[in-house]
Each structure stands twice: as structure tokens, then as C-alpha cells.
């Protein structure tokens, strides 16, 4: 198999798609899983907050945290036959976090204490903050269950690649017993009499911090970590395993982007970070690339560079003559504008391919006339990504 992206879908166990928001990352993830299913694998796509219509088309209407198989009837409707099977699930950050707690707390009283803790509720509920942890957690869970040949993970649109890649490491640090002890000991000992200078100083800090963010809050925080006592080792081991999974030979990363300056800049950052963390960056997918209607636009571009857009438009209108339809100038303007967009995209993609994405397999997908929100749309995208054979 010569196609690197297809080989990825045939051979790997985990494919992680990352990139900034609004570049079609979720759609691309779903398409990769779909293609893998078409290639005969049992594939699951784990998405985060997909467009509702896309979710509906995959049968994810109930917004659960559970894996749902995409009905064969839906494929039949779209006119394709799947050799393998396609599953999908929508990440529910809070429920994933709750499950993690439930798994590691055997004592029901302690479990309740954690689940009802205000600090825990805030932390597990803030979608932006903990979704990168939980995407990792879900990935590990799915990988451990071993029900699937391939897991495609659509990552949260975190602006900082670093945050996402360091999620296991940070999780570990957050639950590092020694850190907790150093930080929380002053509170634990604040009630006791302490004579030393350090003890008095720490006591003052405790009072100040209490005054600053509120006694109630610190109490909640302390209770939270107390309830976690004994869970730390479990969490740390798990974070280590997630990290190992990310570095596994059968785990690959795909960076998804669009040919605008901002997404390309962020994609470049992702590429650099993946290299820095020695993760396997296998491919870059550039979505929504504007196309030229010319097989070889170099002639037109040279003329535009020499004379400008307006002059080219005028020359074409003049060539048409007086009997031309009044809509013709607008149509020609549309063509020239499209040419301009295509040129800009081409230049940026070339710079990107030679710069941050050097040495990485790069795939382009043209901009579609319509938004993709159903299975047949995914099939169209798959056709563009992998050739019409899809």
C-alpha cells in the first residue's frame, strides 16, 4: 500500500487528530474512521462537541458518553457497503471524570465526598479546562477495552498544543503526593500551635490566602485533596500508561488545518510540539483549499501580476463585446477572485509544506460548495482524501 494515510488507517491502533478550532477537525476525524471501516476495520471515532447535524447523522442524538454503532441502514441509504464497522461516541467530560473517580474509589463514602465537592464539580464541569485530560482518559479507556481495531480521537480545540500533549504529565503532577503535602500542610497545621518562625510565617500565609479566595473555598480544596488521598498512586500509574499509549509505535498523529494564516500558524506550532515530544506525526490534512479552474494558472497569474486584476477583467469584458449578457462581468469577476484565493492558498500551503510541515505527508482537500453534515458528505470528503475509490 503506497498511500501513507491509508496505511495508517489499515495498520495503526490509534490516530489522534489535532488542530485549531474551525478547520474541519471533527469532520476529518469522522471521515478517517469511516474510511477505516470501509477498509474492513472496526473503527470508533471519539468526538468532542460535533455539529449537531453530523452527530445526528451518525446516530449520536442522545449525546451520551457511550459508544454507538452507526447503523448499517445508514450506509445502505448512502449507497455504500461497509466491510468493517463504524462506531462513534461523543465525549462527556464530566461523566468520564466521574467514572474515573468511581473506578478508583472503593469506599462509597469517599466517592460521594469527591463527587459532591464543589471544587471537583467546578473542575470536572468546565468544558475547556479538563476536556483535554478527559479526551486522553477516554482514549485510554477505549484502548484498554480492546473492542476496536482503530480509535480515531478528535481532540479539543485547545489553543496550546503543549497543554494537550502534557495532559498525562500534568495529571500526574496535579496528583503528586509530595506537591500536595507541601502545599496543603500549612492548612492542615494551621490549627496547631507552632512556635518556629517558619510555622508562624506559614500561618500568616494561610490566613492571607483564606482572606483572599475565601475560607470556604480553601476548605473545599483541602477536602477535595483529602478525599483523593490514596487515589494518587492509581492516577499516577494511569497517567504513565496514557503517556506510553501516546508514544506507542501503533499510535499516530494527524494535524488538521486550513490554508488561512492563523490555522497554519497554529498547525505549525502543533507540528513543532509533536516533534519536540517525539510523537509520531504521520500526516497533515489541509482542508478547504481554494481551487483554480485552470490546470496551469501560471500564464494568467503572470498577466495579473503585470497588469493587475482590474485590467484583466476589463480586457476580458472588452473581448466579449457589446452583445454580452449583463451578468458576464460579475461572472468573470467571480472567476478572477477565485483565482486570487487559489493563489493565496497555494503560496501559503507551499510555505507551510517547506517550513513547519517539512518531511510530513501533506494531503489537501478542496473547499466544498456545501457544509458537510451527513454521511454522504463524509463519503464525499473520503473520496477527496483517498481518491474516488471510497
Amino acid at each position, binding site marked *: 500500500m503506497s498511500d501513507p494515510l491509508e496505511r495508517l488507517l489499515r495498520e495503526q491502533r490509534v490516530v489522534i487528530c489535532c488542530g485549531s478550532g474551525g478547520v474541519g477537525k471533527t469532520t476529518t476525524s469522522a471521515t478517517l474512521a469511516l474510511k477505516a471501516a470501509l477498509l474492513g476495520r472496526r473503527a470508533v471515532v471519539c468526538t468532542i462537541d460535533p455539529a449537531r447535524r453530523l452527530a445526528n447523522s451518525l446516530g449520536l442524538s442522545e449525546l451520551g458518553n457511550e459508544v454507538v454503532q452507526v447503523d448499517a441502514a445508514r450506509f445502505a441509504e448512502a449507497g455504500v457497503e461497509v466491510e468493517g464497522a463504524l462506531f462513534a461516541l461523543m465525549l462527556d467530560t464530566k461523566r468520564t471524570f466521574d467514572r474515573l473517580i468511581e473506578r478508583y474509589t472503593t469506599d462509597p463514602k469517599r466517592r460521594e465526598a469527591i463527587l459532591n465537592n464543589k471544587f471537583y464539580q467546578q473542575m470536572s464541569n468546565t468544558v475547556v479546562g479538563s476536556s483535554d485530560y478527559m479526551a486522553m482518559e477516554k482514549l485510554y479507556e477505549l484502548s484498554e477495552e480492546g473492542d476496536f481495531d482503530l480509535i480515531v480521537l478528535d481532540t479539543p480545540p485547545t489553543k496550546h498544543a503543549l497543554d494537550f500533549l502534557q495532559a498525562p504529565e500534568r495529571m500526574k503532577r496535579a496528583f503528586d503526593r509530595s506537591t500536595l503535602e507541601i502545599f496543603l500542610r500549612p492548612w492542615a497545621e494551621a490549627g496547631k500551635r507552632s512556635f518556629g518562625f517558619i510555622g508562624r510565617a506559614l500561618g500568616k500565609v494561610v490566613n492571607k490566602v483564606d482572606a483572599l479566595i*475565601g475560607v470556604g473555598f480553601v476548605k473545599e480544596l483541602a477536602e477535595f485533596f483529602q478525599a483523593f488521598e490514596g487515589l494518587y498512586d492509581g492516577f499516577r500509574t494511569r497517567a504513565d500508561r496514557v503517556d506510553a499509549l501516546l508514544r506507542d509505535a501503533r499510535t499516530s498523529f494527524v494535524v488538521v488545518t486550513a490554508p488561512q494564516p492563523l490555522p497554519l500558524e497554529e498547525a505549525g506550532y502543533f507540528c513543532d510540539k509533536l516533534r519536540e515530544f517525539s510523537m509520531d506525526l504521520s500526516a497533515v490534512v489541509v482542508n478547504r483549499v481554494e481551487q483554480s479552474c485552470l490546470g496551469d494558472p501560471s500564464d494568467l497569474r503572470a498577466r495579473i501580476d503585470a497588469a493587475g486584476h482590474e485590467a484583466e477583467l476589463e480586457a476580458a469584458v472588452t473581448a466579449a463585446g457589446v452583445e454580452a449578457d449583463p451578468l*458576464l462581468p460579475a*461572472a468573470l469577476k467571480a472567476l478572477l477572485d477565485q483565482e486570487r484565493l487559489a493563489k493565496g492558498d497555494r503560496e501559503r500551503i507551499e510555505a507551510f509544506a517547506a517550513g513547519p510541515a517539512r518531511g510530513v505527508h501533506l494531503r489537501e482537500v478542496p473547499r466544498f460548495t456545501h457544509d458537510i453534515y451527513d454521511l454522504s458528505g463524509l463519503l464525499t470528503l473520503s473520496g477527496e482524501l483517498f481518491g474516488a475509490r471510497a
Partner: protein
Amino acid sequence: MLNLLDRRLLVVSGKGGVGKTMISAALARLAVAAGKRVLLVNMEGQGRTAQLFGVQAIGPEPLELESGLWACLLDPKAVAFDFILRQLRVRRLVRHIVESNLFDSWFRVSPAIKEMICLGKVWSFTEEKSRWRKTPVWDLVVFDAPATGHGLGLLQLPEQASKLLLGPMRTSALEVQAMLEDRARTGTVLVTLPEDLPVNEALHFHRELTGTLGMQLDLLVLNMAFPDRFGGAEPPLEDVLGSPAGRRALDRLLGPGGAERAAALDAVRASWARGERTRRYAAQLAEGTGQPVTRVPFVFAERFGLEELRQVQQTLAHGLGGPA
């Protein structure tokens, strides 16, 4: 309606990639043109602002980009450090706390706290007075709010924070909340794109803002609005381009032989469809929010520079009903 540029604070919201940074810069420049001293606050995307105005970098200290227009970057951790330092007053202790692993982890997983502290900082900019004359340092602060991806994001934070916190942080949360809710002082701007997901999120944002928070949306911007070149109904493009006159024009433009005529027809059709989609999404936004939609036209230039920014300004000035 109160003039948007006469407020003290503009909060520019929208999901990632909709062009918030450019719209924020254009609004800031409009206010400068109206004779105001303006501070543009970025939390990310300051690279684009710096590039646009040809400065090296924008840092935490306000930097004058051009006469009357200043910009700064909020670094959440530095802002938190300052905030805690003001309360504890012992630099070494504060550094010890802020640099501890636990604080770091907690700070990262609690975006509410991080963003609340930054919102507090933005608020304090509006409160800043000059030392001698005791007049506000900034007539207007334009806050290019970070993309939270979900619902109201930043705007609902003070309310949530005031429930969870006590002490000075609660007091400051309440003050920020009062400021945000005061329409005479704060203006809200939402930026979206003519695409399915951004439009639905914009409608959701509007519902939450006007419903849950009881606030108003002052300016709804549909950015990158594709031009409506053919005026509504599907044009007979095949006839237009297929006629002898059309063929002559295409031969002139694309080169003789006509090998690419089919592709050219497809491209023009796609362009019409894109304009049509913009029209449909604009209508959907107007109907869903009951508010006027300010369409900022798509920029075809290969590079977005100050000239393009000026054009965006003019469109926005129209949307605000003020002078350009």
C-alpha cells in the same frame, strides 16, 4: 441606541477563527478616529495585531501602535501573580505559591479562575485614572475575548465566580459583573461566519445572553460575508458563459481553446452558491436574533493589511450608524 463607541468597554466574543482580532482592531480604530484614547486588549492573537501594525511584539504593558491606539497582551499567570501580590504583599511567598505544581495544575484546569482574573484586569483598565488629573487613562477598552468555544464563555464568569468565591475575589467579581451588565458602560459584540456551526453557536450565544444573563447584544457581525454578485435567483450561468460573447471573454481570460470552460462554469456556480449561503445565514441570524446583522465583506486580497482593515472599519461604521 447608545453609541457603541461611547461606552467604556467593548467585549468582542466569538468562536476561534472567526476574525475577532481583526474586528476588535477595526472597532478600536473607529473609536480613535472619533477622538478617543483606546486600549486594545488581546489574550491571544496578539501576533496578528502586531503584524498588522508593523510592531515587533505586544507585551503586557500597553504599547502605542499609532496615535491614540494602544495595545497589550494579558498573560493570565502574570495577571494572577500581580493580583495575589497585591493581597499578600510578600513577593517571595507569592512566587512560591504561583510556581508550585499544584497552583500550576489548578490554574490550568480552572479556566474560570484564570479568565476571571483576566476579566478583572480588563475591568481595572477601565477604572485606571491618570495620576494628576484623575481622568480615565482609557476612554475605551476593546477586549478581544479568548475563544471559549462554548456558549457565553467569559461573559457569564463573574456571575459564576461570585457564587463560588469569597473575599476580595468575590468583591471584584461582583464589580466586574455590575460593569458588564451596565449597558451605558459596556458594549457586547459578537462575531460569526456564514457557516453552519458558527451561525448555530451565534444563535445559541444570543439566546443565552439575552435570556440567562438578561444582557443585550449591541453589534452582531457576520464576518467574511461572501459577495452577492448576481442578485438573488440562480443566474443562467451556462448561457452567460456559453454564449459566443462569453466564450470570447473566457478565451481572453483563461487562454484560447476553451479546455477549462467546464471548470470555469463550476467555479462561477460555486461562487454564486457561496454568496447565496451568506445571504441565507444572514437571514437566519437576523430572524433568530431579531437584530440587524452587519456584514463585513470577504477580503480577497492575499494579505490582510491596514488598507483592508480600513475597509472593515467603514463597513462597521455603517453598521453602527456613525461617521466612517
